[in-house]
């Protein structure tokens, strides 16, 4: 293989891991609600969303394994990489907290993810385009659900409002990562493989602002922001604990299969 092609494949591999890791980690967080949901319908809803996310993660991991060309399976990529090699968004590894925290996290993510996947639908890479075309339908449904809860809690009782406001204050600082691009992101955008992430900021803010307004909420006042997960594998303390649990079976029984 010539050098530019190898370089492009290495970048694409990392880009696919970012997509897969983000879906996978959020899937696991939502799965933690299984059996603990506030009401039966929401317990079911969160595990349904988790199911869509693991489906999407699998498709990205499978493709990543093929691009890498070292014969690594989706399970090896998901369960045998250490924390520093994970490139999920910091937002999605944040603990579930209460239901307001889970739904605020979900809505901030869904609104961005929908824009991202609409961009990926136009990808010059046909494999990514077809995964995205399928996932966009599912994500549309997720966003509608999480937006509904933000509105219900913001425009609900004093207690629900207090909780959802606190949740947005705690989480908004992690959204800077949505729009921050590194060389790999730029390389993918230049090749038409993925969208220009910085261009997603305005439509994302418009969507979030509109939902917050309907929820009778203002934009959070927190001004801090943090980067590092998606590009560099520098995570908050929470991911390591999650991976320790999530990967324990595959680490204890290497090659374990269903």
């Amino acid at each position: 293989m010539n050098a530019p092609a190898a370089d492009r494949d290495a970048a694409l591999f990392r880009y696919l891991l970012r997509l897969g890791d983000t879906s996978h980690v959020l899937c696991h967080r939502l799965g933690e609600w299984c059996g603990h949901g506030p009401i039966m319908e929401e317990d079911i809803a969160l595990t349904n969303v988790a199911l869509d996310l693991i489906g999407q993660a699998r498709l990205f991991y499978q493709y990543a394994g093929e691009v890498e060309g070292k014969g690594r399976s989706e399970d090896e990529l998901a369960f045998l990489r250490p924390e520093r090699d994970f490139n999920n968004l910091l937002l999605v590894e944040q603990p579930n907290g209460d239901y307001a925290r889970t739904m605020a996290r979900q809505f901030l993510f869904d609104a961005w993810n929908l824009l991202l996947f609409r961009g990926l639908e136009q990808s010059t890479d046909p494999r990514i385009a077809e995964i995205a075309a399928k996932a966009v339908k599912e994500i549309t449904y997720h966003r509608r659900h999480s937006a509904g809860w933000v509105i219900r809690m913001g425009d609900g009782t004093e207690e629900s409002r207090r909780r959802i406001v606190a949740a947005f204050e705690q989480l908004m600082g992690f959204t800077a990562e949505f729009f921050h691009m590194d060389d790999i992101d730029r390389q993918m955008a230049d090749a038409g493989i993925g969208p220009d992430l910085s261009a997603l900021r305005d439509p994302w803010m418009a969507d979030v602002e509109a939902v917050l307004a309907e929820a009778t909420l203002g934009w959070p006042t927190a001004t801090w922001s943090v980067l590092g997960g998606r590009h560099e594998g520098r995570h908050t303390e929470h991911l390591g604990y999650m991976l320790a649990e999530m990967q324990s079976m595959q680490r204890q029984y290497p090659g374990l299969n269903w």
Partner: protein
Amino acid sequence: MTPPRHPRPKPSGAALPDEVFAGFAGAPMQVQATPGPLTVARAQAVLATVPDPEIPSVMLPDLGVIRGVEVTGDRVTVRMTPTYTGCPATDLMQMMIREQLSAAGFAEVVVDLVLSPPWSSDDITAEGRRRMVETGIAPPAHRATDKRHLTGTVPEVTCPHCGSMATEMTSAFGATACKALWRCNDCREPFDYFKCI
């Protein structure tokens, strides 16, 4: 306006067609390795007996997940698309297709998973919709391209039990990725609604 009336669902599995049980453990094989030419038509006839594992009254072709069948000699290739990316029934569907086509005499069965174009609830046939109603599941109320879908307007869903339009959604998500939970305010029965996607 008088809503259309549908018959109540059959109360027990005993009254369901035999195909409902095809492919499950303990069920009699529906297709035996009978002599005869191995044609596309034969493969399609076999597929028409393979049920959706989660909605067993609906056969896979009626669910709209079969995208093509090719036969070369005694080798058959089936192109199949998943309903949802994470649908756990996808693996089972592939297994059941392999099982049934092998039993029908095909020496080699290949099931290719295709993603594009993505599956839509519009791909469910009229027969698939009829079977859903019979098992107490309300089929998608409109086409996926309907603008009500884009705006998130809640559809008007007919109760599969009594035919009333006085229904409401209780949860946007249901027992499987493809369904939502609804209830009827006339007959007071809860029911599954097949999501429009």
